């Protein structure tokens, strides 16, 4: 499952979600500001508290920020 860690006020988080949608990727978005378990999972993944947007497909590798090339590589799109 593709996961996107975001916060509500972040325009780059919106851009990542719109990009994935435009490429037909099914994903679940988690708001780390409101969801403590998601925040913990995101910290565990990146080692950084609150750094978003983060995209992951395997909970091991991830892309931080809107980096189209890296997102495409990560998800094989």
């Amino acid at each position, binding site marked *: 499952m593709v996961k996107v860690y975001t916060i509500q006020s*972040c325009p780059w988080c919106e851009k990542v979600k719109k990009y994935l949608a435009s490429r037909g990727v099914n994903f679940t978005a988690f708001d780390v500001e409101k969801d403590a378990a998601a925040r913990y999972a995101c910290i565990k993944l990146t080692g950084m508290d609150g*750094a978003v947007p983060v995209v992951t497909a395997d909970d091991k590798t991830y892309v931080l*920020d809107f980096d189209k090339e890296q997102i495409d590589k990560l998800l094989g799109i």
Partner: protein
Amino acid sequence: MAKQKVHKDVVIIGAGMAGLTAALYAGRMNLDVLVLENGIVGGQIANATDIENFPGFISVKGSDLIGTLQKQAENFGAVVDEFDSIVKVSLRENPKIVETEEKIYEADAVIIASGMNRRKLPLPEERKFASRGVHYCEFCDGFMYQDKIIAVMGGGNAAVDAASFLTKYGKKVYVIHRSEFRADEVSQRRIRQNPKIEIMLQTEIKALHGDKKLESVDILDKKSGEMKTLAVDGIFVNIGVEPNTALFKDELKLSPSGRIIAGEDCKTEIEGVFAAGDVREKEIRQLTTAASDGTTAALLAEKYLARLKEVV
């Protein structure tokens, strides 16, 4: 694989107020319009919380205003692509070439409305601490600094508003600026009354320190000449903006400040190429004048295209 070639009547570079207004007008004139944006749709106002000087609104959020404008433009057929970045342009030929990572657009007219980017922190350590203590988007990265010590660098409205916003997260927010405030009185009063904010004017950040992430900054008190080290977890840089014209520097005349030289008719030195909004060299740069430029550029682009068809 060779890139696909696509013809457009008008390619608009930038989806801020000027670019989207141009798209709305050009779309309404039945032109085939593409808007390319490689940052955030809305540009500098995308995150503005209370716009109180746009006619017709008592107060409006930047995202709402720009969202509505984008829908208006799209309703008239304009297409906004915010995922494909321009790699080069060739404006002196006809049609004009706008090459992106994915396609080659052949455009009869081009409207440049690429706006401004935030100026980077001019210190050699900037790269080391980028996203690890040095930030440019308080809305994106402020959440990283819950109960931490934050510094906002800058003295304009954007800096002062960023400081107010960041008090939502930080336990302490310094506002550090090398001279006096340029922010308006209302915004200044708001931060002066906030107990979490400490204002340090006539103060410069001279160096950044930290191992893997930012831990402290050296600051110079310009009045006393005293240097000291301040423990800071994150800096949000708001020291102004610079025109986004790197793509055009070999094609168009730029002013000493790096903006495109074009008259009030938005016409550049190249026929069929227009500059609109903050990227154009002009005295007044407001949201309303960006909308005005977008209107002018689109209407005159349509006239140019009509003449072009007559010649053919």
